[in-house]
């Protein structure tokens, strides 16, 4: 059971609103709760505008959360008051960004990009140690030490993303938020980067929050998946289960739209459409555990329907609701 594992991150009722109180108030993340266990990969999927990127950015405090609680490693980090607190927090959580072109300073050499965290946190004893650390990191991500005095423009997209990963690893974080880390890469290179991330996770015991819209890749890399839509999480569960037996209608429609590299499958594709208006019927909804570890955002009268669905899929035989 997942409950026995240690939670490294707990997000309770996270809200991230923009332009609060104004006419154009945007509730980008609206009452989102989830836990991430140590050593796992939690995939957050959703369409553009669903709030998945904002959620990641709120967790790492690139935005100041409007409301809610974020507990990291047993410590409440929802409000970081001093610079020192922020400093400490950012050493434990790092981020890998989507665009490997925009996220590396073009005027800095690779060694200085990778060592920026080392410098900020004073992790190197002297220059020789700094160089050694950088070279080790480059080797870890599959680049070689000769690359350290080059500039980002001398690298391909896949190599740049490796530099971004090396930079994130430099401060030896426990937790990495990867926001669409492979979306800008070619198919053959995507697999290289995903493999590297998996390998690093096994070796260094990292925990990932993997944010992406590519469902097949998310399913492959994640242990558990959360599906976001309009700022809310609609379904959370084990990756395989969510993918093969989605319970929420939105998840179903999302998965049915994923193109599959199989012409025979594509000829018989059945697209499920989703009508978002059903979410706006003023009913109170909360996350209900329909099958073990499999939550769906449901109103009281929908619970029975979801339970029936789960029973039909063989996910649950007789399971009491929480």
């Amino acid at each position, binding site marked *: 059971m997942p409950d026995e594992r240690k939670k490294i991150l707990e997000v309770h009722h996270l809200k991230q609103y923009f332009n609060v109180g104004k006419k154009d108030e945007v509730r980008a993340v609206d009452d989102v709760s989830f836990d991430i266990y140590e050593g796992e990969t939690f995939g957050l999927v959703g369409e553009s505008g669903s709030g998945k990127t904002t959620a990641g950015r709120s967790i790492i405090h690139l935005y100041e959360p409007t409301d809610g609680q974020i507990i990291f490693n047993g410590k409440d980090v929802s409000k970081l008051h001093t610079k020192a607190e922020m400093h400490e927090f950012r050493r434990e959580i790092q981020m890998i960004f989507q665009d490997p072109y925009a996220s590396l300073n073009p005027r800095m050499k690779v060694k200085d990009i990778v060592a920026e965290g080392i410098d900020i946190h004073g992790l190197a004893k002297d220059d020789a140690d700094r160089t050694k650390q950088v070279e080790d990191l480059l080797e870890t991500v599959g680049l070689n030490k000769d690359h350290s005095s080059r500039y980002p423009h001398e690298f391909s997209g896949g190599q740049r993303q490796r530099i971004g990963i090396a930079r994130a690893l430099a401060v030896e974080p426990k937790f990495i938020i990867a926001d669409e880390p492979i979306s800008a890469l070619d198919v*053959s290179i995507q697999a290289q980067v995903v493999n590297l991330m998996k390998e690093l996770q096994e070796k260094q015991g990292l925990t990932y929050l993997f944010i992406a819209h590519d469902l097949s890749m998310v399913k492959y890399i994640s242990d558990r998946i959360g599906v976001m839509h309009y700022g809310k999480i609609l379904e959370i569960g084990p990756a395989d289960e969510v993918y093969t037996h989605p319970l929420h209608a939105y998840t179903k429609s999302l998965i049915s739209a*994923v193109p*599959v*590299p199989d012409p025979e499958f594509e000829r018989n594709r059945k697209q499920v459409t*989703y009508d978002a208006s059903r979410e706006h019927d003023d009913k109170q909804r909360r996350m209900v555990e329909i099958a073990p570890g499999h939550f769906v955002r449901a109103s009281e009268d929908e619970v029975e329907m979801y339970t029936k669905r789960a029973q039909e899929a063989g996910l649950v035989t007789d399971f009491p609701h929480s």
Partner: protein
Amino acid sequence: MENPENVIEVRNLQIDFHTYAGEVKAIRDVSFDLRKGETLAIVGESGSGKSVTTRSLMGLLAPNAVIKGGSIMFHDEDIIKKSEKDMQHIRGKDIAMIFQDPMTSLDPTMRIGLQIAEPLMKHKGLKKKEAVAQALEMLKLVGITNPEGRINDYPYQFSGGMRQRIVIAIALVCYPEVLIADEPTTALDVTIQAQILDLMKDLQNRIDTSIIFITHDLGVVAGMADRVAVMYAGKIVEYGTVDEIFFNPQHPYTWGLLNSMPTLDTEGGSLSAIPGTPPDLLDPPVGDAFAARSDYAMKIDTEQEPPFFKVSDTHYAATWLLHPDAPKVTPPAEIVRRQKKFAAMEKPEPPIKHVTKE
């Protein structure tokens, strides 16, 4: 035209780009046909030359591009020899194009109705009123809700998916014979992508357009294409029907592409990435350009360029593995699985003898 069924015949196309670093050989001897009413998908990584190839069909190459040789026949005329003025009569009327980013391909300062009507006024000499009336019909056709109320809106008032519908409406308003779609859904979410792809298929049936579909997404190819050409380092390395490419691929690069994608059944373990990066086309490698990244490379692959070997009447692949003297190799497990499926599929011809079977 060699074959009356063809709309476009490209033969031995070679395109270089002058850069400060030297001549980039972007297209290295590319030939293909586009048949009437079909969808031909061109797949490949960035830099493989798929976009350059299609831009040359439109006469839209960058100023530093030089067509070194070859021909592009359209209506028994070579497009390469045409002047810019002549091309302006073809572009948008006979050959139209949809680009990846719907925001940058629309004019932000022009009402969408007028943008759709513009090609009609330019190419068909319609008066503004008639053209706008037809634009309205087109808006209905591409599924914009409340078209009467929205025809005078500006692009920013639409979502990404709706904007791409408008771009499609502009491209199709003159009922072009050929539609070139360059990554038309890459910037869109999967659910919107599915809608746009359905729309394109539906419109293709209605107005009988031939489509060249450029993408790197093999899932999209599987759903859209009748035939597929796989490009690598400025060359087509394999082409065939969609079933032949997905279920009976022969080139190690095609194997690598199909193998590096997680499928519904992929469980744990690591993905089979293609190692390394594509070659630098400033100085293209001798022989098979994919050899340096291929587990199946032989000595000859680094010495001599492979010709196209025939797999079936519709399926050709440029790999020495198909030479009668080549050793029999076993493709990756995923490819073997696909080939088994192919062997079991109903088709007019018996399985070809080059296929290695376990």
